[in-house]
């Protein structure tokens, strides 16, 4: 069975400083991993995905994530935060058969001016 841990329920950064949102996963199979963003009162938008190709994955809006199998991690980073990045971020793990698509509890990102 898969599971996802997002170590921080809330992260606050200043505009222009780096963002790090942490995600650790547990999977019995080779996982696919995703990051989604949810802006207030909006649906979920895919930021990026890892599906066994390059371990460093680039996504939209300047975000990227690195798959580290030895650490079972898939942390999300961005070099410079923008006010519009303030949202809820979800890390998701899926096994390759797709029988299960499991969300982490989410991390709320606040960006201070």
């Amino acid at each position, binding site marked *: 069975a898969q599971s996802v841990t997002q170590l921080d329920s809330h992260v606050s950064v200043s505009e222009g400083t780096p963002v790090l949102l942490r995600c650790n996963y547990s999977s019995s199979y080779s996982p696919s991993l*995703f990051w989604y963003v949810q802006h207030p009162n909006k649906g979920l938008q895919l930021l990026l995905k890892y599906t066994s190709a390059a371990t460093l994955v680039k996504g939209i809006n300047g975000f990227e994530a690195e798959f580290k199998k030895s650490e079972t991690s898939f942390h999300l980073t961005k070099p410079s935060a923008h006010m519009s990045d303030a949202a809820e971020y979800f890390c998701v793990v899926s096994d390759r058969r797709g029988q299960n698509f499991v969300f982490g509890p989410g991390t709320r990102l606040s960006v201070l001016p």
Partner: protein
Amino acid sequence: DTAVSQTPKYLVTQMGNDKSIKCEQNLGHDTMYWYKQDSKKFLKIMFSYNNKELIINETVPNRFSPKSPDKAHLNLHINSLELGDSAVYFCASSQRLGREAFFGQGTRLTVV
């Protein structure tokens, strides 16, 4: 051109009523899902259909019944609504099992 659309966006209803939420995707995907997001933002899968066949049915009260008339539609019918059913319900679709899912805008259900 909305890829995954669900209606209505907001639904306020009294306890005991029966209601439906509709979902349509125009992406040509084989797999569709219903998720429930609670007040703490936690998302949990409820159902998954692949080619109109039910493949995931999590521990959900049998008052909830999904219906997939064709691959492009997955509707959610809820009988005898309870206060605890209040949540945001998201429909999603993916090209096939295990691929990234595309989400609708959500339906905020409030049971009073």
